[in-house]
């Protein structure tokens, strides 16, 4: 009797185990089927995804107008300048006041606050060196001429280029000379501190015009060099892989299980919408998700944007064709072929990078929106002809938002 019972029990047990195993494997099979379904991309689609991934970011482009762009000493000195509050009228404002490293080099404000309030939102600095134009309206054509803009702005640093020259002579003489060569003599006579042609202050302009041409040239050169050092530092602020990049990497290796850990179904659906139906990639393209061109996407604004940036960059004494640029004229391609059709660019602003976008509200050139979902509702409704997306449903907006959140990754910059 006993052996039979044991035998029967054994059979039952084996059957049970087999049943459980069968169920498990069926579950595994459906799970695998699901993975294949969620992450199904054609070869052509995968190559589009790769074009958006950081793994296809080319090496830092050369800036022919800045001979110090990859000089390690200039990078180090530029970093000091970036955080030095002495480059401001009240001793309280540095670049880092508005571009805080902990918050993606922004300030989280709709409109920036320096010496006063600006009319536009602070821009993040990640991957900036890949741009051709700087500021929302592209009124600068290099990172170095961009960097010296805020210093003389009355609402930002409120400083003057002459005070910069004094500060360099007093506090940075050795480091400066190691990179840029001998400093000219700077004193209150050759360089009255209040003198500047760029602040909009008539007394400063008068003092500037009263200076000897060679003194003005000396001060301008120091000022440009400060910009070149800061630019060398800013160029090193780069994005590191975010879940989206790791997702694309896993896809390329055909490792769907790993892929699934980086992006869930909603985010993947959102990515499909972003590159497909919603046509976001017609402007937010490439590994930095920007074409760095100017578009009017239909925001209500009185700010003329690029339409006014064109003349400013053409007239800028610190542009690529100016005497403080290190480029040969034929290297200034962007400026040589600049589109001067001003009417076309009324209300057009530079397409922002979407790297880390979920992590740095508010949004748009004047901080018009507090959240990503507000941005997406705006896109859903905008009638701008530049946007081609079809009707987007509210569920689709949520999915696009889930995708945008996968673009948040660490930054790297010289510590």
């Amino acid at each position, binding site marked *: 009797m006993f052996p039979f019972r044991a035998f029967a029990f054994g059979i039952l047990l084996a059957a049970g185990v087999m049943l459980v195993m069968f169920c498990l494997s069926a579950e595994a099979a459906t799970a695998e089927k699901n993975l294949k379904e969620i992450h199904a991309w054609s070869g052509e689609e995968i190559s*589009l995804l790769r074009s958006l991934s950081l793994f296809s970011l080319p090496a830092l482009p050369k800036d022919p107008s800045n001979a110090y762009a990859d000089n390690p000493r200039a990078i180090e000195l530029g970093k000091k300048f970036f955080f030095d509050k002495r480059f401001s009228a009240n001793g309280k404002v540095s670049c880092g006041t508005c571009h805080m490293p902990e918050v993606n080099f922004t300030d989280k404000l709709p409109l920036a606050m320096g010496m006063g309030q600006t009319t536009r939102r602070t821009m993040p600095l990640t991957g900036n060196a890949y741009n051709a134009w700087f500021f929302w309206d592209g009124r600068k054509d290099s990172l170095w001429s961009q960097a010296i803009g805020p210093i003389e702005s009355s609402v930002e640093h409120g400083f003057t280029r002459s005070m910069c020259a004094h500060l360099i002579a007093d506090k940075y003489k050795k480091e400066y000379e190691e990179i840029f060569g001998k400093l000219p003599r700077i004193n209150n006579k050759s360089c009255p501190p209040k003198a500047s042609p760029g602040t909009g202050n008539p007394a400063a302009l008068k003092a500037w015009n009263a200076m000897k041409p060679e003194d003005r040239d000396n001060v301008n050169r120091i000022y440009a060099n400060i910009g070149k050092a800061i630019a060398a530092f800013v160029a090193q602020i780069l994005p590191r892989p975010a879940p989206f990049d790791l997702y694309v990497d896993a896809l390329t290796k055909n490792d769907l299980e790993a892929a699934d850990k980086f992006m869930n179904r909603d985010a993947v659906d959102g990515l499909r919408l972003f590159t497909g139906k919603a046509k976001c*990639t*017609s*402007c937010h*393209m*490439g590994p930095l998700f920007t*074409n*760095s*061109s*100017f*578009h009017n996407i239909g925001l209500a604004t009185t700010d003329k944007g690029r339409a006014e940036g064109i003349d400013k960059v053409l007239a800028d004494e610190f542009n690529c064709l100016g005497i403080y640029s290190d480029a040969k004229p034929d290297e200034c*391609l*962007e400026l*040589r*072929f*600049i*589109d*001067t*059709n001003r009417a*076309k660019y009324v209300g057009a602003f530079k397409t922002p990078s979407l790297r880390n976008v979920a992590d740095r509200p508010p949004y748009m050139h004047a901080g018009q929106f507090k959240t990503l979902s507000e941005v997406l509702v705006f896109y859903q409704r905008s009638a701008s*002809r*530049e946007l*081609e997306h079809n009707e987007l449903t509210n569920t689709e907006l949520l999915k696009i938002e889930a995708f945008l959140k996968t673009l948040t990754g660490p930054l790297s910059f010289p510590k």
Partner: protein
Amino acid sequence: MIRKIGVILLGLVFLGSMAWTPVFDPVQAEVRKPTADADYARTKLSKGGIFKASYTSEPDAVPVNRLISWKLKVETPDGRAVKDAEITLSGDMPEHGHGLPTQPRVTKNNNDGTYVVEGIKFSMTGWWTMTFTIKANGKTDSVTFNLQLK
């Protein structure tokens, strides 16, 4: 009576001025995107059949968001090089109502019927047109190439 005529005249002038204001109509026949492969050919006869034009791009696969240059070859329909053409060009995204983000131009005549065009940059993916207006031997004609950029 005179006042009535005046009002009618004014009305007519108003209507006339309306008729002359170019109203943009997005469903114009021209705005329809070409679909046939042939429409995207890199060699084409100009509209009036006066020239044959072809372009090569550097790099060959036309990229987005990068300054590139093209070489335009201009011939007569029977294949003789047109060496002294004056060429102007413009790029357009007919569906979006905007053109190129740059102002490209011919920067060099190679004197063999080919011309270097510098400063071309396509700022978006999608359908673009590139129209070259060619003036040579006392005649002017234009040719439009279509591009579908990814």
